[in-house]
């Protein structure tokens, strides 16, 4: 009964907030209210099945509908999805295994450049024959390739550095990312591999393989309108895959080994855990996620340059993981969503609002303070540019006041019941229980 009331309440909220977005397509607040519905679904005391179906309905049906009304929201959803995927990957490294990787963006860059170089005419610069850009179908091949490339570079970097103490490891990964960025920036000569700071464009997008099908159904296909939706669903699928793999790793000997290493490396090794190999695996898995997301990013942006892969991006993703709660999958999702929306919508909104105030030329007369000439708000003061301050504040405040994050990892509870579990071949996993 309680379940039904809450379900009805949730459905009502989702419909109401979507209507708000429909009637006020320019309102950031309406969209935030809609986004909050996912959080409500997560927290509502309803059964797992209800949660999953409501979340699926919201993500698969309602959000794309809203996106067709206002494409900007779809763009935001895609960017949020990309950062959620990155945060989930970094969460494996930092959250599960306790390795502070400050150069995570390097793997993202490797994936992005992998597709950018071969999915554009760039590769013609060093491979003759004019085979490039590769056809769009190769996008999916490169998505798979990038997983291998990411894992390989992650392991190659990890091999020499994973024996280092935590803080040194952090600095080495940071140095590695700076080297990668400098290489990307400078390898336009002697051989033009990356086209340097000018970046690479145009990059091929994934093929619209379902176009004939849609046309057969009598739907007029407009690629410009279709691609955002298409990318949205690719991101969603990629996210699903990442969440599935992450969850399965977490609930396995590997996940337990990671947590043990994070908790007490000496005890872990004394229990027979091959620490370096497990750390390497965490590094490689995290790197392969980032690399795959990079391919997607390159295809979506059509243009990439080294500016997208700075230290700030690494720290931004770290801030997302820490805000949500290290080692927590829901935490990483929440953290990435919150930070991305804060940056994309709230700070930009504030910038626009300040601009409007400035141009209004109003002079406010405030009691005690005196008069304030709004046109004299300094033009260099743009809230949208203060991402670092946001990231910095998140990191400091979380470390001091809530180091375990907003949604810290829950205890994995596994009720052992040989009579049922062995026969059904399923693990009997109870519901999550609160910490402590």
């Amino acid at each position, binding site marked *: 009964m309680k379940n039904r009331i809450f379900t009805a309440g949730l459905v009502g909220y989702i419909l109401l907030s979507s209507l708000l977005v429909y009637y006020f397509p320019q309102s950031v607040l309406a969209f935030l209210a809609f986004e909050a519905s996912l959080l409500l679904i997560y927290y509502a005391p309803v059964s797992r099945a209800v949660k999953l179906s409501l979340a699926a309905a919201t993500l698969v049906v309602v959000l794309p509908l809203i996106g067709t009304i206002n494409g900007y929201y779809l763009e935001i959803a895609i960017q949020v999805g990309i950062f959620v995927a990155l945060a989930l990957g970094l969460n494996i490294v930092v959250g599960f295994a*306790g390795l*502070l990787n*400050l150069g995570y963006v390097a793997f993202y860059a490797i994936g992005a450049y992998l597709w950018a170089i071969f999915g554009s005419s760039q590769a013609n610069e060093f491979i003759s024959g004019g085979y490039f850009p590769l056809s769009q179908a190769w996008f999916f091949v490169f998505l798979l390739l990038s997983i291998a490339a990411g894992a390989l570079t992650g392991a190659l970097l990890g091999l*020499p*550095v994973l024996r*280092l*103490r*935590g*803080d*040194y490891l*952090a*600095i*080495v990964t*940071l*140095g*590695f990312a*700076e*080297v990668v960025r*400098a*290489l990307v*920036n*400078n390898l336009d*000569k*002697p051989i033009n591999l990356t086209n340097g700071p000018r970046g690479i464009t145009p990059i091929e997008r994934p093929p619209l393989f379902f176009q004939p099908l849609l046309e057969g159904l009598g739907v007029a296909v407009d690629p410009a309108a279709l691609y955002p939706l298409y990318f949205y669903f690719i991101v969603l699928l990629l996210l699903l895959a990442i969440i599935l793999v992450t969850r399965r790793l977490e609930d396995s000997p590997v996940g337990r080994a990671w947590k043990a290493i994070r908790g007490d490396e*000496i005890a872990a090794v004394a229990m027979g855990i091959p620490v370096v190999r497990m750390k390497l695996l965490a590094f490689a898995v995290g790197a392969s996620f980032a690399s795959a997301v990079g391919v997607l990013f390159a295809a979506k942006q059509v243009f990439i340059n080294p500016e997208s892969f700075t*230290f*700030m991006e690494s*720290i931004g993703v*770290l*801030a997302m993981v*820490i805000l949500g709660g290290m080692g927590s999958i829901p935490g990483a999702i929440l953290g990435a969503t919150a930070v991305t929306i804060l940056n994309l919508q709230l700070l930009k909104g504030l910038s626009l609002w300040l601009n409007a105030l400035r141009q209004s030329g109003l002079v406010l007369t405030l009691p005690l303070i005196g008069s304030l000439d709004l046109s004299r708000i*300094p*033009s*260099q*003061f743009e809230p949208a*540019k*203060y*991402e*670092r*301050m946001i*990231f*910095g*504040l*998140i*990191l*400091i*405040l979380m*470390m*001091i006041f809530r*180091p375990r994050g907003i949604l810290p990892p829950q205890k994995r509870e596994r009720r052992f019941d040989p009579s049922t579990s062995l026969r059904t071949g399923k693990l009997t996993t109870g519901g999550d229980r609160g910490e402590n």
Partner: protein
Amino acid sequence: MALSLDIFLQVLMDGIVLGFMYALIALGYTMVYGVLEFINFAHSEIFVLGAFVGVEILLALESSGTLAALNPAFVVLMIILAGMIVSGLAAVALERTAYRPLRGAPRLVPLISAIGASFFLQDFIRLVESVWHNSFYLSYPTLSLLDRSVRLGAMVEVPFKSILVIATALAMLAGLYLFVNKTRLGTAIRAVAQDPDAAALMGIPVNRIISLTFFVGGAMGGVAGVLFGLHYSLVNPYTGFVPGLKAFTAAVLGGIGNIPGAVLGGLVLGLMEAFAASYLGILTDGAFGAEYKDVFAFVILILILIFRPKGLLGEKVREEGV
């Protein structure tokens, strides 16, 4: 371009100037690491703060028209002192707010907080300058005194700027050496670095000594900031990241926690970088040029950390118990 002697000497000079700059910044990393075993990632912003204090004072003097009337040596001395004090105090405040509450937490916790502080300070400086000057890219007004130079022999022309950097750095290093080794407070710093618990038992006020360490390290960073501004002229809130990382490299290169090591590491790195910047192009026939000098420094950092994390002067690393 040939490998001529005058170019060689010029590069040598640049390397030494750069090296002393790195050495001064590296002191802040190494002193704090010696006492707390913690990488003060925000030290690069303490350094930048010094540079901004210098430029703010010079700009204020310039706009009030007094800059020309004052003795330039006095002006330089004044901004160096101001940079020292402000950076030192900022480092103390930073420790109080962002690090002290995390004392005793796992090693990575204060490091993450320090990274946060670094980012926060970058944008905080930007915010203040944007509101104040409506610009956060500032350049040092020219001081005619510093644009002069002296000739050493027939080959080398040494700008006053370089002499200023080297002389100031040497004075600072000598002062620091005397302070750490010959005064009671310096002894207390060394005692805390060796064993904080034992130091506390001996009645040393450990918290105050840690604050003092941050002040001294921050002050050295502040001097470096002012010198950086006077030498290279342009500063912005994000200037600190790369020199900071390189100075940290220098500290590790010399043996982190080791004060003479930081100086040695700074000089070695500065010279290597200067020579790499000038000669990489020649050696590789133009394929790789000066743009790789940063890569060069970071590769050294990675290699040192992997193969000789104790650094050149191999300082003790507290053994981790089982």
